[in-house]
């Protein structure tokens, strides 16, 4: 016999209901930080791939960090 309540609990993430909202918000902020770290770890040779004469502003890591900063601040504020 299928335990429908157990299945509903699983599908609806009731097992995460005890997580405080502050911790959930922190999880999103941590996600942005992790992405920022992953971006930082990309070798520069891959970042400038396809450019003949790369300049400092071609560094896509800086672009990505700028966007991540914007979303980080947004999720801190709200």
């Amino acid at each position, binding site marked *: 016999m299928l335990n429908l309540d157990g299945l509903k609990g699983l599908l609806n*993430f009731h097992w995460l209901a005890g997580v405080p909202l502050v911790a959930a918000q922190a999880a999103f902020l941590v996600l942005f930080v992790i992405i920022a770290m992953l971006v930082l770890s990309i070798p520069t040779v891959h970042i400038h791939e396809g450019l003949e004469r790369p300049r400092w502003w071609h560094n896509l890591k800086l672009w990505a960090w700028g966007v*991540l900063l914007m979303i980080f601040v947004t999720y801190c504020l709200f």
Partner: protein
Amino acid sequence: MLSGIDYVVVIAYLVGIMALGLYFARFVRSADDFFLSGRSLPFWAIGMSIVVSDIGAMDFVAVSGQAYRYGIAVGNFDWLGSVPAMLLAAFVFVPYFWKAGLYTIPEYLGRRYNDGVRTVASLTWIVFFAFDLGVIFWATGVMLETLMGWPVWLSILLTVVVVGLYTYFGGLIADVMTDVVQMIIMFVGGAAVVFLGLHHVGGWDGLVEKITALGQGYENHFKLIQPTDTKTPYPWTGILFGLTFVMANAYMIGNQAIAQRCLAARSVWDAKASMITGAFFKMFIPVLILFPGLIAVAAHPGLEDGDQAMPTLIRSLLPPGLSGLLFAAFLASLMSNVSSILTSTVTLWTKDIYERFIRKEASDRHYLVVGRCATLALLVFGVITAPVSDFFPGIYVAVQTFLSFFQGPVFSVLLLGIFWRRATAWGGFVGLVGGIATSGVLFVFQASLFTIEDPFLYVSWWSFVVGLLLTVVVSLATKPHPAERLAGLVYGWERPPTGGRCEGVTC
């Protein structure tokens, strides 16, 4: 309702956008030019095009309506639903797709798995886009009639003529370059409503004060993160698992309408930069389409239908001239939406179906003609099916829900395809079909399985998980692909392994 000066603005916009689109048609001389702009597009044009292709005219009303009801939590769809996924696409997926010289995303699935996976994915997108076109025509036409008093068929026929002409002759380059102007018009028109609205309610402080003063029911209107037991469709678990991890990635990476623009970039750097540029502009979209809903809460509390938020603001705020500009912004969103559907669908049809199964070794000129004929056929199909929507009131939502059915499974096979060398053709096929079937089952039994309203975020997450598991299990039970076949298709496997360092695909 539009005044004389508004009509001048709208007509100037229509003539200008058609002239611009037709100007770029002069650069189309081959099928490659038509489908991928001869791989010549700069990052800024692609980035702007990605943003505007993703926003339909309906979003102005629907998102502001959701914001009126639920607050800024709806903004998650443009912030969390775009930025992380676009960065993942920029640094991981797009360079591989671009370097592989692809025309379509199903083409990658075909090379990585087999023709079965490619065909299922391609046909699913073609069917979705084809029906979506008629639904978008009708829904937007009805909306513009309600908002501006513009007859439904006039909106549809104007869009068909303007977009049809420049897409038929100009293909992707006309689509992308007109999108640049469409985005500017959309931003200016949307910003005008927000600026006037904020001024009307006493600025940001006045907005917060007025909404907070409304008391119970509005205490979460300025919270992006909603609890798991929220009555809104946006619990944080759904936002994190369904939206951030699955739907956003599936949309930004697996959606032909988005990815095709990156494939047309003039260099791999431009392809990556276009996604990050798009992410930057995406950060401002909620301000344009969500804030009007919040402003309406402060200015006109107690509306029975949240979707009346935007129309009410337009009637109460906009002076003559600006109404025309906003109407042009709506038309810009519609046209951009339609042209991106046209270019991506005809590319899927020509490259994945026609060239693969109907006529394999035809001339370049032949495929260009096929692409153009498919554009016309699709437009006619869209116009014919548009009024059908009138008989099915829930069809707009139904078609959008259908999208969430296959996004999770498609992303699961894309993810394993690029990150797991052991994923096999049968694994990908069973994962894709099994995942889509799971979505269908969850949708049918949603009332008894889910506790939140409209659980599409959870459906896409669980169908993704099932697609992932099925692909892994079946792949492990079937014969791995030879190593040389995976070169350039799997992350970290740029060239076939040499020197005995790695003998097989399982290493």
